[in-house]
Every structure is written in structure tokens, then in C-alpha cells.
């Protein structure tokens, strides 16, 4: 049961995130009922008291805490202050659009990184690759996005300017989100390939009569994939943070837009649900990565 401690650790992180979310909801100044009703409310004190009772805000803090934890297990994050709808509905409605964007971006980033890592083997091409990588990693996403928009939407009219309808509207946002991640992945893969190629097994593989393509596909690329896998959680985090900016920039519906609106409006139940979900994604990714390591690297199967 090698995974048991990791599983316990993952649950502790989730419990911590839920507790943090609860504390923020309780400790941040501002009366939730006042935020819900808006500034120019005509509601009487009796009405406010009833809403308070409905939300369970009149109960002792401990009861509220355990109630909150219990409801999170059922994916019930309460009601949005602003939209007066269940938080899980608000998020669930926008999820597909963000999944399409981040999914397209990660596939694109992997393809770009693989092509660069495999083709840039010479002295000049390596130098070009490292300069390009530095450039895309150092350029903020909202700038590359604006440049792509200016060129391909406003000058050439190839793609729509904004919106979330159809494949054409997905192209520029996905490229914008993919570029910095492609730069990071390409650096990791190139470095991994270099160190794999320096190992003695390469000579023995070539001596067995395997061609360079087979060497790459069966051996060195697997070695190179290890360090990149370690960054899986970081990359997913970059996708989520980037989605906030990209969705705002391209006027795409999605979780990022929901997050930004919730942050701007102090809609704390939505914000905290998103924080908790981000933590959950992080935990799940790390569990998957831990399970993947032994598959990628047989040496880790017998270790420990």
C-alpha cells in the first residue's frame, strides 16, 4: 500500500482548502446578506433575518463549519451572492467551454514542444529554439493574445474577434494559452533528451540495430518525459491562471470569466468554490503523476 500515505496527504490538503474557504467566508468583513441584496436594498430587517436563517448564519460557528464540510462532499458550495443561483450550477454551466479551451491548449503545447525538441538537435537550431523559448515564456499571455488578435482577426480577418462559438473561435485563445506552456515543455523535453542521449544505453540500443526513430520513440523520449511529468501540476495551474486572462481577452465564456466576475464583485461563495476546485484538481493531478511514474520508469517499480 505505497499509495496510502499519499492518499491521506491528498485528503489533508483538500480538508485544509475547505477549512480555508470556510474561514475566508466567515472572516472577511462584510455582511453576506447585505452583499446579496445590493447597496440600495429596501428589504426590512425581518426579511434579512429570514435570509440569515435560511443560510444557517444564525447557527453556532462549529455547526456551520461541519455543515459546510458536509455540503462540499456533495459538491454543494452554497448560493452565489450575486447571481442567486447555486454555485455548482454557475460553475457547471461554464465548465465545458473552459475544458475545450484548456484541452486544446495542452494538446497544442505538447505538439509544439515535441516537434521543437525532436527537430532542434543541431547547434544553430538549438540556439534558435532556446531564444524562442525564452521569448514565449517571457511574453505575458495577454500581450501575445492581443498581437494575435490584431494580426489574424483585425488585419487578416481569419478568425472571429471574440466569443465562444465554434472551432474558429477556439483557435487564437488556444494558441495564446499554449505558447508559454509549449516553451516550458520544450525546454524540459530538450534537456531530458540531451541527458538521455548521453547515457550508455544509447550505444547498446544502436548496437542492437535499432534506428534513430525507434531509439527516440521507445527509449530516449520516455526518459525525457519524466521531468516534464513532474511539472504536470504546475502546467495545469498555468492553464487555469491563463484561462482567466485568455477568456477575458477573447470574450469567451468559461470558468475564468466566472472567477474574475466573482473576484471583482466579492462573490465569495463562488470564489471559494473555485479555490477548492483548483485545490482538488491539483491533488488529483499529483496522485495521477505519482501513479504514472512507475509506468514511465520501470526502475521506480522496485524502488522503496
Amino acid at each position, binding site marked *: 500500500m505505497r499509495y496510502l500515505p499519499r492518499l491521506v*496527504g491528498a485528503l489533508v*490538503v483538500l480538508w485544509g482548502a475547505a477549512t480555508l474557504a470556510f474561514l*475566508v467566508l466567515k472572516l*472577511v468583513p462584510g455582511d453576506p446578506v447585505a452583499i446579496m441584496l445590493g447597496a440600495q436594498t429596501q428589504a426590512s430587517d425581518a426579511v434579512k433575518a429570514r435570509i440569515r436563517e435560511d443560510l444557517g448564519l444564525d447557527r453556532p460557528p462549529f455547526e456551520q463549519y461541519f455543515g459546510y464540510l458536509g455540503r462540499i462532499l456533495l459538491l454543494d458550495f452554497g448560493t452565489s451572492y450575486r447571481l442567486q443561483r447555486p454555485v455548482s450550477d454557475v460553475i457547471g454551466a461554464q465548465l465545458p467551454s473552459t475544458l475545450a479551451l484548456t484541452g486544446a491548449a495542452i494538446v497544442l503545447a505538447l505538439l509544439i514542444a515535441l516537434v521543437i525538441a525532436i527537430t532542434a538537435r543541431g547547434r544553430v537550431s538549438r540556439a534558435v529554439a*532556446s531564444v524562442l523559448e*525564452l*521569448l514565449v*515564456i*517571457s*511574453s*505575458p*499571455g*495577454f*500581450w501575445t493574445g*492581443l*498581437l494575435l*488578435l*490584431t494580426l489574424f*482577426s*483585425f*488585419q487578416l480577418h481569419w478568425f472571429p474577434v471574440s466569443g465562444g462559438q465554434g472551432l474558429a473561435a477556439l483557435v487564437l485563445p488556444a494558441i495564446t494559452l499554449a505558447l508559454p506552456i509549449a516553451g*516550458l515543455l520544450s*525546454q*524540459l523535453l*530538450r*534537456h531530458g533528451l*540531451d541527458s538521455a542521449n548521453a547515457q550508455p544505453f544509447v550505444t547498446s540500443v544502436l548496437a542492437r540495430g535499432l534506428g534513430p526513430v525507434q531509439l527516440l520513440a521507445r527509449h530516449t523520449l520516455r526518459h525525457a518525459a519524466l*521531468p516534464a511529468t*513532474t*511539472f504536470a*501540476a*504546475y502546467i495545469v*495551474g*498555468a492553464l*487555469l*491562471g*491563463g484561462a*482567466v*486572462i485568455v477568456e*477575458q*481577452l477573447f470574450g469567451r465564456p468559461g470558468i475564468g470569466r466566472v*472567477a*474574475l466576475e*466573482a*473576484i*471583482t464583485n*466579492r462573490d465569495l461563495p463562488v*470564489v471559494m468554490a*473555485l*479555490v477548492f476546485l*483548483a485545490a482538488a484538481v*491539483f491533488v488529483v493531478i*499529483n496522485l495521477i503523476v505519482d501513479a504514472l511514474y512507475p509506468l514511465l520508469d520501470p526502475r521506480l517499480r522496485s524502488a522503496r
Partner: protein
Amino acid sequence: MTTQALETRTRLRIPPVAAIVAGAVLLLLVAAAFLPGWFTPLDPLATDTKASELPPGPGHPFGTDRLGRDIYARVVHGASISLSFGFTATVVAVVTGTVIGLASGLAPRWVDNVVQRLLEILLALPELLIALVIIAMLGAGTVNLVIAITIAAVPVYARIVRAGTLQVRQAAFVEAAVALGQRRGAIVVRRILPNVIGPLLVLATIGVGTAIIAGSGLSFLGLGPASPTPEWGLMLSDGRGSLATAWWVAVFPGLAITATVISTTVLGRWLQARFEGREA
């Protein structure tokens, strides 16, 4: 960027010329931050409806925006905002990270373990995401933005200082200092700190760029300073309405951000190569 990212990076050999250019760019930016009047006589906030969206040319090297404001003047005056984001966040984060790292490295094992698990989680997340979560809790605004990017940067420094502390804690010269009866505080400051200052300086140089990207990203989202402040990220956000007619509005503020970030990265990696060379 996390320390792990730096460690696994392909070591790009930075030619001295690149390091000099990067240093020059940063010097220019610092000069622009302190003495914007040297670079442009124009007011970054002055609007002129007759000069709306003029393309780059004599008089307006970067063109003008929709309200007729000179973009070059706005980029120059924006330097002080972006640099103050970057430097404030980095300096405060380095100090906080050093204290946490030293304390964690010298504390009992279980305290160290708890702190390390927390830092590992934070290190595995991009700074922009952490900063967004903090802004979500604190609310928007320029001060909260700086607090958010500062907190997001702390884990990197705490980790490197803690690693350095563990390395030298057992070293003979530290034991000698203990045996000579030097006070704990003096040992930390005089024996342990100098040994971690090199890597710390490298990370801080690169960290200024990372903090500037995060800060301008939050500003772009409208979570920092408000219009008409000439903040680079905010300028790009404000310029979105002009893209169809004036490409220059979208180009120059972003170019300023990217040039700054590339310069800090190049300078940081060059410093890194120098420090490693000396140790080898």
C-alpha cells in the same frame, strides 16, 4: 518561475553581450522610473482629441491612443509603476522567505516538515494563480495587488534559504562558531546567511521579472490600479477597443513588459552561471 524550473532548465550559455544588453535595458528602465522627464517632456495623462490614434512618427514615436495620449510618454511613466511592483514584491518576499527558510531549517524536524509540505504545494502552482486567489480573498486594488504578488513569490526564496541552511548547519565552521560560544543570532547572520546569498540573488533577479508579469497580468484584469494610470498591463487592457484601427496601441506596452522580463531572466541566468563557475 519556480526553483525547480530553474534547476531543470537547459543551461543556455548567456553570451556576455546579452548580459550587458540586459543590464543596459534594466538601467534605462530604472532611469525612466526615477527621471521620466529626461526621456519625454509630455504628460502621460494629457488627452488631445485632435491627436486620436496617430500612428508612430515624429513627435509620437510610439503613436497615440484613442484619447490622444502619447503612448511613449505613458510607457516611460509606466516604468516606475511596474518596477515598483517588481522590486517591492521581490525585496519583501526575499526578506520574508529568508526568515521563514532560516527558521524552518533551524527548527525541530516536525515544524520543518509541516512548513516544507506547505511550501511544496505553493511552489507547484504558478505565481499568477496564487496571486489571483489572494486577491480573491483581499479584494482588488493596487496595495492588495502588491501584497498578492509578494506572498506568491515567498515560497521560492524560503525553499532555497532552507536548503542552504541545512547544508551549512552541520559544516565545521558553524560547529567551530558554536564551540567558540558565539550567539545563535550572530552565527545565523555571519556564518549561514553569506552562504545562501548567491543563489538568493540569482533567484531575486529573475523574480523581479516574474513579479512584473504577475502584477501587469492582474492590472490587465482590472484588479490593480484604475485608468488612467499608465500601468503597462492596464494600458493593454484599455487599448483593446483600438485594435481594429491602431495596432501600435497593443504593441508597445507589451513590448516594454516582455523586454523587462527577458532582461531580468538573461541577467539572472548569467549571474547563475558566474556563481556556479566560482563554486566549481
